């Protein structure tokens, strides 16, 4: 089966029926009005206490079958027959034991702390005409990312310190004005992009006594120009990933930057966290894609004077900005590399007899520098999980074929179903080269006992990336909590780190009194010349625990210690935020921390950008 070009046009595995950014329509009417009605849009479309779109979620229907609602995704509207058994089998979960979110989705402002407003700042802000709000819903919505503890608290109706107001600058100059006023009146500013942080980066420091302003960049979402001679695009930093790709696609281009969160995360957020995209093998990570950055800091605007593709002008100032996690200023505009849209795209998958062989194959692929746009290796547990998410097959013929495949792999080829694992592949480029490339990769795979397992499996693997976050909400309805975290590690450590971290999670759960065996699984999601990025997923059934979130946090903490003890990095692309900052000193040395501190002290002496991430 060949992939049609239309499918490529929408961002890879996503099938979006409509644009999300309702706010685009709204702008223009709200200048100077402290109004929020129109800005509700965002959470009319999106859940306020869970992942993603309000209309898309997993649920168990009256027949007890799992179903994914909505129309946005490939899986939408489908029955997933295997999910119930998998959940019951893996977690010991039971459909009878429900834990729905305790407060109704309609927020009551009484539950939220009253806003601490800085009167003088407010007055001057009003005179600029930049829209703002101190409505409870607006504030709560921007007080969190998507860490488990954040979502769990929301579901229980617990709100800690939340921003005191939200402002919506419309352009770079608006941001300059806001930051000037914030400095003048000593107000704390926390930039807010897509809100998909998983490092507690958006949490308001509880000790902050100043008024906290959440600076929402969502209105700065335009592509300002496209330069086809140099293949660059100048974009406002508030633009969300899928909009950026869609708009560029209209002109026949793409950035190729596709982090798993691309439906919701923003360009400014990518820059601030050093994001990584699925197809980095072709397009590069954010640091490879960025040509020019404009950032507003309390000291003024920082930017380079030209767009030379590489410069030898001392340490690259972009590297102070990338990964600064909102502690230095707000990224307002970015010039990015763009590429013509690929002519052809093809998914693929390979089954390996075991994880060791799979890793050896990925290593060889990296060595030969022939990695496809994306190559990912799931371990056995994740393979089974992916299997459980197979939608109901429509014809007897397909199910017969499936049975035949299973028979071939397990009986004929002798693969142990409890050990085998799957790599998913995505090739991109012109048709000829893709096919050639495909052959090269499958040949290498064969040397490691890998069997080609079809495009369908591959495509489903990538689709899972986008729906897996929805699945956590379903788990939370049935006493199951979980999270993913990532690291990067040299090749010789990959197997060791996977084994040890998974084992550590299982042991810690047992030690902390978790009554059911946890799900502890991993996958290798990126390959580099010298190492790989590894993703861990971990979830458990918390029935019988009085403080599940605390247990969860202890286990995650232990898992991170294990990662570091096994030569893994603190983070590959999620960032440090507040969740991981205790390990920063060990990670970058005392002098390193000192260097970063002195930059912060110069750029923002009054800690206006006071989210306290990183250091």
């Amino acid at each position, binding site marked *: 089966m060949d992939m049609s070009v239309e499918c490529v046009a929408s961002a890879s595995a996503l099938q979006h029926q409509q644009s999300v950014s309702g706010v685009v329509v709204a702008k223009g009417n709200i200048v100077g009005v402290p109004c929020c009605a129109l800005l509700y849009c965002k959470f009319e479309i999106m859940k306020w206490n869970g992942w993603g779109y309000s209309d898309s979620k997993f649920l168990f229907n009256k027949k007890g079958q799992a179903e994914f609602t909505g129309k946005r995704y490939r899986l939408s509207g489908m029955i997933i027959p295997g999910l119930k058994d998998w959940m019951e089998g893996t977690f010991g979960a039971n459909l009878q034991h429900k834990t729905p979110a305790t407060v109704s989705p309609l927020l009551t402002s009484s539950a939220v702390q009253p806003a601490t407003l800085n009167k003088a700042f407010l007055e001057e802000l009003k005179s600029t005409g930049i829209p703002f709000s101190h409505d409870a819903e607006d504030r709560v919505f921007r007080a969190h990312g998507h860490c488990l503890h954040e979502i769990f608290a929301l579901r229980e109706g617990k709100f800690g310190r939340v921003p005191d107001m939200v402002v919506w600058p419309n352009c770079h100059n608006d941001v300059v004005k806001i930051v000037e006023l914030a400095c003048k009146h000593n107000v704390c500013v926390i930039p807010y992009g897509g809100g998909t942080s998983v490092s507690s980066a958006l949490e308001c420091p509880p000790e902050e006594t100043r008024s906290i302003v959440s600076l929402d960049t969502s209105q700065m979402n335009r592509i300002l120009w496209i330069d086809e001679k140099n293949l660059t695009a100048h974009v406002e930093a508030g633009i969300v990933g899928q909009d950026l790709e869609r708009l560029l696609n209209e002109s026949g281009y793409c950035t190729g930057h596709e982090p798993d969160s691309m439906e919701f995360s923003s360009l400014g957020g990518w820059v601030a966290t050093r994001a990584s995209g699925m197809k980095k093998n072709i397009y590069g990570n954010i640091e490879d894609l960025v040509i020019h950055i404009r950032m507003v800091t309390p000291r003024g605007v920082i930017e380079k004077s030209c767009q030379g593709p590489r410069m030898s002008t001392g340490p690259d100032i972009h590297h102070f900005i990338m990964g600064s996690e909102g502690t230095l200023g707000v990224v307002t505009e970015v010039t990015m590399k763009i590429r013509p849209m690929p002519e052809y795209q093809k998914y693929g998958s390979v089954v390996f007899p075991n994880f060791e062989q799979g890793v050896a194959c990925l290593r060889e692929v990296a060595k030969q520098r022939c990695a496809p746009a994306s190559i990912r290796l799931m371990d056995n547990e994740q393979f089974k999980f992916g299997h459980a998410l197979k939608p109901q097959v429509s014809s007897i013929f397909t199910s017969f074929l499936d049975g035949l495949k299973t028979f071939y792999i397990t009986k004929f080829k002798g693969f142990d179903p409890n050990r085998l694992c799957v790599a998913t592949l995505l090739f991109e480029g012109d048709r000829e080269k893709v096919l050639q490339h495909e052959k090269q990769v499958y040949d290498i795979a064969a040397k490691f006992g890998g069997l080609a397992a079809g495009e369908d499996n591959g495509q489903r693997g990538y689709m899972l990336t986008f729906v897996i976050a929805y699945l956590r909400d379903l788990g939370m309805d049935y006493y199951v909590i979980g999270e993913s975290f990532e690291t990067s590690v040299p090749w*010789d*450590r990959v197997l*060791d*780190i996977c*084994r*040890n971290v998974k*084992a*550590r999670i299982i042991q810690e759960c047992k030690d902390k009194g978790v009554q059911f065996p946890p799900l502890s699984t991993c996958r290798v999601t990126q390959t580099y010349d010298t190492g790989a990025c590894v993703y861990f997923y971990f979830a458990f059934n918390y029935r019988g625990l009085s403080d599940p979130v605390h247990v969860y946090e202890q286990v995650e903490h232990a898992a991170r210690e294990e990662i*570091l*003890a*096994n*030569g893994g990095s603190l983070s590959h692309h999620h960032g440090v935020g507040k969740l991981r900052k205790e390990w920063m000193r*060990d990670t970058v040395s005392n002098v390193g921390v000192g260097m970063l501190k002195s930059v912060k002290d110069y750029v923002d002496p009054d800690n206006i950008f006071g989210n306290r991430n990183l250091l």
Partner: protein
Amino acid sequence: LAQLAVQLHRDPMLKKRDDFEDMLEERRNSSDLRYALRCYTPVLYKGLAPCKASMLKSMVLQSDQLHHVIGQVSRETGRAADDVQEEASAILEEMAHCLQLSTVRFFAFTLSKVFKTLFRSICVNEEGIQRLQQAIQEHPVVLLPSHRSYMDFLLMSYILYTYDIALPVIAAGMDFMGMKFVGEMLRMSGAFFIRRSFGGDKLYWSVFSEYVKTMLKNGFAPVEFFLEGTRSRTSKSLTPKLGLLNIVMDPYLKGEVYDINVVPVSISYERILEEALYAREMLGVPKPKESTSGLFKARKVLSEDYGSIHVYFGQPVSVRSLAQGRVNRCQFNLVPRHIPRRPSEEIQSFVNDSAYRLVRAQEENMVLKPWVLLASLLLQNHHQDQTAGQKRGMVLEELTAQAVWLRDMFREYGAFLHWPGMNTVLKVVSSSLSLHRGLVRVCGQVKPGEPHSTVTPEEELLSQAVIVLSCASYRNQGLHVFLRPALLASAINAASSNLKQEVFNSFSFLRNMFSNEFILCPGATVQDFEEACYLLVKTGALQVTQQELLVTERGQRTVAFLTSMLDPFLQGYQVVCRFLCEEATENLTEKQFVPAVRKFIIKHLLAGRLRYTEVLSSDLQKNSLAALLRLGAVQKIKSRSESFNTALLRLGAVQKIKA
């Protein structure tokens, strides 16, 4: 609550130990042949298939570590890499085991016969076996048995075979290889051979460590070795050797395995096969070189009764939990793990502490037989006689009465005492005495010993010393129970006042001095002092006030007993000091030391100036020299003119040890 937990942990009466099963019983009731040929299907580490010896060898030879070292050696010496590779391969050939089930079955058959003749019973804690079985499935396992006899490792494999547990590969000293046939037999039953010393030989070290690690990491078989390095001739645990422990902990520290389970095993013999051999060896009759013919001569031992053996498989210790909070494993992040490096100080001290903990775990689970008590009492009595210049022995009733007192004391101090409950005390005592009739005799009436006219006084002294040293080795089995309280008792005796600080200082001095002699964890002085105080106070022998330590009225007997336990050691150290002060010349070499000091001691013993024949033990003499070296009282100087291994001992200011 935490404090309570600590208290509970420290209270020796509350130690929980498993029950024993006699595994010989079934052997006596069913066919040995069928037993040797039965189906043997041990559980393995996470269902791994056992690996052929040849495959193991090729894994070692292809390892990154060995490749690296071969390259290094070839660069340093200018030899061709192939040449070095060949040498490595030869080393491995000499070293590697080739476990064969048929040989194991042969041993299972013959050992059944032998054991049934030699021993009344072989008792094993089956719960420990179950724990071991569990541990083997979870993580790679290292078995650490105590080492008192050549029997130990055959016995271990025999037990594991019996209980259907994966057979271990065992690190054995090269000296066994001298016995051609036996050496190969042992190899086929799972032994691998290492040279006793290979200090600077990088290649040898690399092959050896990679071999052990490969076996361990892949969980093909439990690795077994003796932490004490060699058989203890005195029944005291020996200061642990760290080389192999370092190697087996390395895969965990480098993250190559999730965890490693270390299982201390305590093997206690009611009567040690090598009893007299050891004593003679320590008195200067060199040990016969292991040879096959020597082994056959040992056949005469088959006709004797060696009582029972107790084997206790301790709680598996997770290396991960030992290292928790002690070792920062990130230290391996910046250098490729296959490049051998000297362990950091942090790791050295961790391995050292762990080794001590493990040896103490062995000690704690050593089963003590009634004879240990009797030997202690008889020796003390002998010493009293010695001072009085008589040779009376002890009246049986008195011995029995004292044994009851001592038994209760052992129990109070948490000893793992095996005292047959259903028999009367007198019966227990008599049966113990008769088992050891080579050492003690019950005579009808008290009669003065008749001096043999045919022997010289020196010969008589030495033959008596053989008996005394043998008895002392049985007494030593129980030493660890009382060691800390005994150090405290001696410290109270030696201190100039009862002030706590004074006593502590004197305790700390004694402890420091004796740390080559006994298992005393480095750096745990305060802990040991507190433990000693706690035990003596708990048993009512001591009162501790804010300032002072006072021995109670009823504690006098206890304290006297405890002090007299350490007395022979104190005298031994004193006499070594005296020798060094009075007789040692400028160029006393290390080799000459033992014979010279022995001569000196014999002279003094014959003159009646010394009380304890025990001080003739070369073990004691070597330990005291090592202690004096460590304390800086004596210095070792490499001589230029002499041959390389000759060292000069120069006497520094020998510290006088208080009486």
